[in-house]
């Protein structure tokens, strides 16, 4: 536990000692605002809710989270510090959770900076607090899932560009899996019905929707938990076999 925190602290400090953190936060907030107000038509709905805000999160994260996750292991591999880290008395699990936690906390921090959004909504009307809380919670879970996935692709390579592109594609699949164009394509390819349903069940949007409405379903929590744990375990296997 202590080692996990030491590694997480080092990783967090490295975000803020380089421009990465600041560039990320500024772009994240700018895009969030742009999508919510200009594309989402926040005012057009004429209701005090954050629906037009949360709906963009899976899409924005798809591009931005891999930018945070791509350096997790690729950078260590390229710099040779992987050798340093894994010859210290640190277990693989401690290293992986430490780095993941650092990235997740950072994303959580960026998410907290969007608090003016709900404050605005409270100022304009009388919104439901429940959906806002579950929406934020779901958004944080999505960020964690994407981060674990991009950490996994980062462990495969020393090239951050490859890591970025691969994880964007995987995240894109998770977003699109439930959309009719994808499901009908699968059906056209002759996939069995249960397979199509399975693919649709993998969709982030599908699991995030109920959370935006204020419903906290155990199945959704299991979904995010499973995906994240799976990605972290795969990272461990990759790092064990490819040094």
């Amino acid at each position, binding site marked *: 536990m202590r080692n996990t925190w*030491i590694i997480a602290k080092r990783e967090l400090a490295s975000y803020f000692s*380089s421009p990465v953190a600041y560039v990320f936060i500024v772009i994240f907030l700018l895009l969030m605002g742009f999508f919510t107000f200009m594309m989402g038509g926040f005012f057009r709905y004429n209701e005090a809710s954050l629906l037009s805000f949360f709906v963009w999160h899976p899409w924005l994260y798809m591009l931005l989270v891999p930018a945070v996750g791509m350096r997790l292991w690729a950078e260590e591999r390229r710099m040779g510090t992987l050798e*340093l880290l*894994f010859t210290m008395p640190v277990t693989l699990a401690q290293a992986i959770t430490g780095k993941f936690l650092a990235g997740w906390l950072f994303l959580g921090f960026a998410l907290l900076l969007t608090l003016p959004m709900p404050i605005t909504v409270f100022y304009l009307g009388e919104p439901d607090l429940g959906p806002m809380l579950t929406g934020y919670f779901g958004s944080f879970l999505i960020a964690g899932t994407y981060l674990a996935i991009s950490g996994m692709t980062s462990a495969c390579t020393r090239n951050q560009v490859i890591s970025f592109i691969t994880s964007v594609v995987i995240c894109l699949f998770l977003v699109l899996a439930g959309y009719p164009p994808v499901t009908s394509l699968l059906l056209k390819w002759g996939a069995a019905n249960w397979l199509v349903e399975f693919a649709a069940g993998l969709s982030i949007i599908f699991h995030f929707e109920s959370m935006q409405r204020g419903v906290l379903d155990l199945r959704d929590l299991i979904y995010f938990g499973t995906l994240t744990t799976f990605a972290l375990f795969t990272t461990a296997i990759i790092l064990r076999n490819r040094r």
Partner: protein
Amino acid sequence: MLRRLIVVHKEVETGMIKAENVQKWFGPNLAVDRVSFEVSQGEVLGFLGPNGAGKSTTMRMLTGFLPLSGGKITIGGHNIEEEPIAAKSMFGYLPENAPAYADMNVQQFLAFTAAVRGLSGAAKDDAVEKAIATCHLGRVRRQSIDTLSKGYLHRTCFAQAILHDPPILILDEPTDGLDPNQKHEMRELIKNMGKDKAIIVSTHILEEVEAICTHVIIIDQGRLVFNGTPAEMRAKSATAGTVVVRIRGVAFIDVEQAVASLPNAGKPSLTSKHEGAITVSIPIQDSKKKDGLAAAVKTLLDSRNWAFDELHTDSGRLDDVFRAITSLDSAKKEADQ
């Protein structure tokens, strides 16, 4: 001799680093082939070999970074694969090319490694300060690591390896990238620490072996081709035992004839001729009987009343031996294929 007695008195821990039949396959290529050696407390083992011989691969297996394909490694009694954490807390490691986190400054980096090594509070600060002083990093302690010169970077990474005062040090090319003064200092440091630690140093600089090592192993194409002390290595040299003498006012022919009568003397050769003095090398014939030739030559010179101003026995050259052992082996292996 005295030092050895003192060390024995303190009860030397033998086999601090122990490699038994270590093997490493990279796909179909055998990078390390059944290598065995041992390093005890108070020993500095020089790990020699040409580039690409498998030195760094072996170091990476010793430190638990690479898994073994066969054999067994124990560090301070802990199997590196079965008890990695216990084994890893026994040593400090300086990897090849001295990697360090580029986005931290020297002091932050050392504090981080100290924390991972289990130090905290005042003990951590002390360890960091001591390492900074030992490695002369005071001037750059707040400098970002990616702006350090190669020498400073190397010493920062070395500081990381010694800061928790481990009983075992594993150093991959510790003097790489240092200037001659720093090299000298680094060697003194290693030699001093070698008195009560078990140290393994990989290098391809042979003068380093002379300067700091108590034992030497040579690896070539993944196989162990020599295991002994630097003196034993030198003795394997073709020129070891050769008597070199500088004589005044005598012709080489006369010396040649006179030497032919000596037992165990080979055919002498004229190495140089300068202002009436000639330097003659007299090789030994039977390499098993090394002693006595110099004395015999001296008696001969005295009996003939030839004036000489230099007479010594060549103790052999490490680089000759290194070249002979490694190139011979490579040639044989290529012939096999």
